[in-house]
């Protein structure tokens, strides 16, 4: 992927506070028109990274570009092309939702007034708060404020949307709506968003990056990230003498580990192999050599993002 295909690219981007690295030499590559999920536990450095891209925090080392523009030298031009939703959006309490959107539009457009109003109305409709458009911000619920935050970020149809926990304050229906909106954005913008809700990432993201302790521990297309470490894991459901089955499998040179989950009448074996091909072709045969065993089910293990996330973060592994 060359630089022209990237919306965001960072090289060894770092930020430290009193010698402690909040963001430690990260190399991000966010392709244009992707929905890019930025994951990590609390304190991983997600918000700091986003704020560095926006020029709100200065990097202590490394560099970054947004659409080829330097995030420090060309910060104002970068921000012209970004729409940003903060983690806990706060707007001026004396303004209404409509006034807030009008105010946000005023940073990008000089007129005509009726067209700006039409755009404001369009955004209010998009996020479903048109009925509350003329109420003061302080009367809006957390979810409604979040929706307003998405609308103001989108008001100028930015090339890149940076959304920090866009669905955090929403109920399940609100989350569903926001995910649908994110998917619509893909057509015109790149969406770079952080979240703790891993189901959402798996549902809408093309690309994912997992950050832990300020460092990238996994980055790539969602399928690639999900396959990390699971290529050679198989699950087999059997009936019969589980211990004999386990012993038989552990006797094979291509088997590293066998974990057993006893379900009463049957048992589920999670077999980790060091040779995926050998396991795929020979695993069932080994078990069926024992006539007392019945293989009820056999499949390559497919991980979900939560498993991968927990394994990577808890394991503390890094790319480098």
């Amino acid at each position: 992927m060359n630089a022209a295909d990237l919306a965001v690219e960072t090289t060894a981007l770092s930020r430290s506070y009193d010698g402690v690295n909040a963001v430690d030499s990260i190399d991000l590559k966010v392709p244009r028109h992707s929905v890019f999920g930025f994951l990590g536990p609390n304190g991983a450095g997600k918000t700091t990274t986003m704020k560095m891209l926006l020029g709100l925090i200065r990097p202590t080392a490394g560099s970054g570009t947004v659409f080829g523009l330097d995030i420090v030298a060309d910060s104002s031009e970068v921000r012209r092309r970004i729409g940003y939703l903060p983690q806990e959006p706060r707007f001026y309490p004396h303004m209404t939702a409509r006034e807030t959107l009008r105010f946000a539009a005023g940073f990008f457009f000089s007129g005509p007034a009726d067209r700006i109003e039409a755009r404001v109305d369009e955004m209010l409709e998009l996020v479903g708060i048109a009925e509350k458009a003329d109420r003061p911000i302080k009367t809006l619920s957390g979810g409604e404020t979040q929706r307003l935050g998405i609308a103001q970020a989108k008001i100028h149809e930015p090339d890149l949307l940076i959304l920090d926990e866009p669905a955090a304050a929403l109920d399940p229906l609100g989350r569903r709506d926001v995910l649908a909106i994110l998917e619509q954005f893909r057509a015109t913008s790149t969406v770079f968003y952080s979240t703790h809700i891993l189901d959402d990432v798996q549902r809408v993201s093309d690309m994912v990056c997992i950050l832990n302790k300020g460092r990238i521990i996994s980055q790539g297309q969602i399928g690639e990230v999900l396959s990390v470490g699971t290529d050679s894991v198989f699950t087999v459901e059997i009936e019969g003498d589980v211990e004999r089955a386990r012993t038989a499998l552990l006797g094979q040179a291509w088997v590293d580990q066998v974990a057993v989950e006893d379900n009463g009448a049957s048992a589920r074996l999670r077999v980790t192999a060091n040779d995926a091909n050998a396991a795929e072709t020979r695993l069932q045969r080994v078990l069926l050599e024992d006539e007392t065993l019945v293989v009820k089910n056999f499949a390559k293990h497919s991980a979900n993002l939560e498993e991968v996330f927990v394994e990577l973060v808890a394991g503390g592994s890094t790319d480098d």
Partner: protein
Amino acid sequence: MTKAGIAALEPLHESGWRGGLSNLMSAGFRSWWGTKDWWIQALLWTAVINGSLAPFIWGDTPDELDLFTLYSVMSMFGAIAVAIVMQEAIVGEKRSGTAAWVLSKPVSRQTFMLSKLVPNAVGVIATMIAIPSVLLLFQVTLAGMEVSTPRFALGASVAALNLLFFLTLTLMLGTLFDSAGPVIAIPLAFAFGQQLIAGIPGLGSVLPWALVVATNESDSSVASALITGQPVSAPGAIVFTVVACGIFTFVAFWKWNRTEL
């Protein structure tokens, strides 16, 4: 959804230090003149200044010097109000996150600071000095006292300079601290503490205090001397206050440019 939604809109061409200037300035002025704040402040200060001075104006033997000495002293209370009004201007936005939100737009840090300085300075001076002073001049004229309008305007400008001192001081403190406590406490402590340190030889005639209050080293304040046409005994106070306002403003801009949000 396509870019067609914004195709009919005219892009705003403000870049460099002017980024976001028109929008933030109009929002800043609207926060004064688009709300009830301006007339509440104007009514309050008109009532305080004109009401307090009415007995001097309509009394049996109105004394011009006493009247305008008290007028300039009254404006000292405005300094306290300025600190209260301005305390949240920067700190409040830093803490609430609205500053980070605004600065995530194509807005320069200088513009953000200007939008706090200029509309608030205009609002404060108009409602706390200009409007009450015009009505005071009207009242004085009605009572048959002869006051030179240009001299009165000059004296009122000096009273306004005193307010600007506290406005820029509070603004600077807002960039230096993250909580409202010191931002309001330091200006208030200075406002009242001046009467103590004004006794130190040499200081009395240069502190902003001397602009509106007669000190040990001067018979009348700079403002009342200008209005009544007497010699100004503490011109150093004007110089000191102007220089201090400049330094406070410079530090505020400098610090804000380096503030991480």
